[in-house]
């Protein structure tokens, strides 16, 4: 398991792949390179955490992996699809169907119940209401939040809201979950719970990429990547996981 043999199945398992990705803002003397030739694979079943000081390129990396931003050079692939070749419309469709996002400010819509919030991306994608609701309830159920379905965001705790946000990020057939500082300002008990949920999604087969500046949350990952000045400085891997 720890060998680096070219396993034919291994590449099929990679859900997000960054190859020598550079992101430059602006041109000429005033340009800033937010990311400098970063390569990273996130496989199905894997939780990868990205750590680094502010300005190190963490969020840029996450946005590129999810097709929210485009690389200046290098390539980003999601489930084998190279994003550089996609039209804006195709990229938007891929973002909707393949990628789930969880952000610090949870962005649940206050006037919608938990179930309606989770249904929303599917409805936007043209799925009929009845089926969208069915999928939403299944996603909530999977996260142990079935009892929250008819509650409004203000009737939930921080941890419950984040559970719903994660259900919304995963509803449908999305296998890539991207989380940018998902623990925000919650206390450590709720923060651990949120990482426990993300960990559970990875164990159930999703590829999860988490950006955090807090070591205690990064520690839930199989692999921790340290980013410094737009480059990968080092990586720590948990003992029992196969090397990649």
């Amino acid at each position: 398991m720890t060998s680096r043999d070219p396993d034919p199945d291994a590449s099929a398992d990679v859900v997000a792949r960054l190859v020598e990705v550079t992101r430059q803002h602006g041109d000429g003397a005033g340009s800033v390179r937010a990311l400098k030739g970063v390569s990273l694979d996130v496989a199905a079943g894997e939780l990868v955490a990205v750590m680094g000081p502010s300005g190190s390129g963490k969020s840029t990396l996450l946005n590129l992996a999810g097709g929210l931003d485009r690389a200046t050079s290098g390539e980003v692939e999601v489930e084998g699809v190279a994003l550089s070749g996609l039209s804006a419309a195709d990229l938007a469709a891929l973002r909707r169907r393949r990628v789930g996002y969880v952000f610090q400010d949870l962005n649940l819509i206050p006037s919608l119940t938990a179930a309606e919030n989770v249904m929303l991306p599917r409805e936007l994608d043209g799925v009929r209401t009845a089926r969208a609701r069915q999928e939403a309830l299944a996603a909530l159920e999977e996260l142990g939040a079935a009892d929250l379905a008819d509650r409004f965001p203000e009737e939930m705790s921080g941890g419950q809201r984040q559970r719903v946000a994660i259900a919304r990020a995963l509803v449908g057939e999305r296998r890539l979950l991207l989380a940018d500082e998902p623990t925000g300002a919650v206390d450590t008990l709720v923060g651990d719970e949120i990482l426990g949920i993300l960990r559970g999604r990875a164990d159930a087969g999703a590829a999860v990429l988490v950006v955090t500046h807090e070591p205690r949350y990064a520690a839930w990952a199989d692999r921790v990547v340290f980013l410094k000045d737009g480059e990968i400085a080092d990586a720590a891997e948990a003992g029992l996981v196969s090397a990649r």
Partner: protein
Amino acid sequence: MTIRHGLLALLTQGPRYGYQLRAEFEASTGATWPLNIGQVYTTLSRMERDGLVAPGEQDEQGRVVYSITDKGRAELERWFATPVRQADRPRDELVIKLAMAMTAPGVDVARVVQAQRSATMRTLQELTRAKRGAGGAQRLVLDSMIFQAEAEQRWLAHCEAVLAASPKEGA
């Protein structure tokens, strides 16, 4: 002295043999603090001398059951009621290593810091993995170790920022 108070606390649940005390001590602390049976018996005989525990009759296998005395209960009560003082920490090798890396010529401090960050992160990952299956007392013990490893990580990140702002002279 903590082993002694730990054993007294276990004895409040009823009389115990030495080997039982050892097993229960480790179950409570998540085997993060292994005791050998010799330490248990040494501690018990000192506590017997001090009147904190009393031995019962030997059974046919020569084993002795210990129980807590009134004096033992009072001592335990005092222990629980007294906050632990931030002890004078033994000299911390990591702190000295970084101070020396700053001082000695030709040492890449940033590299020393990064190597330690990765190692401490691996420890943190292992502790977090262990915590997933733990409950009760064990979980709290692991949490304590996680907070300590986290503090070290934060300090190392701070060192990195300080170094970036004012690099070592001659580097």
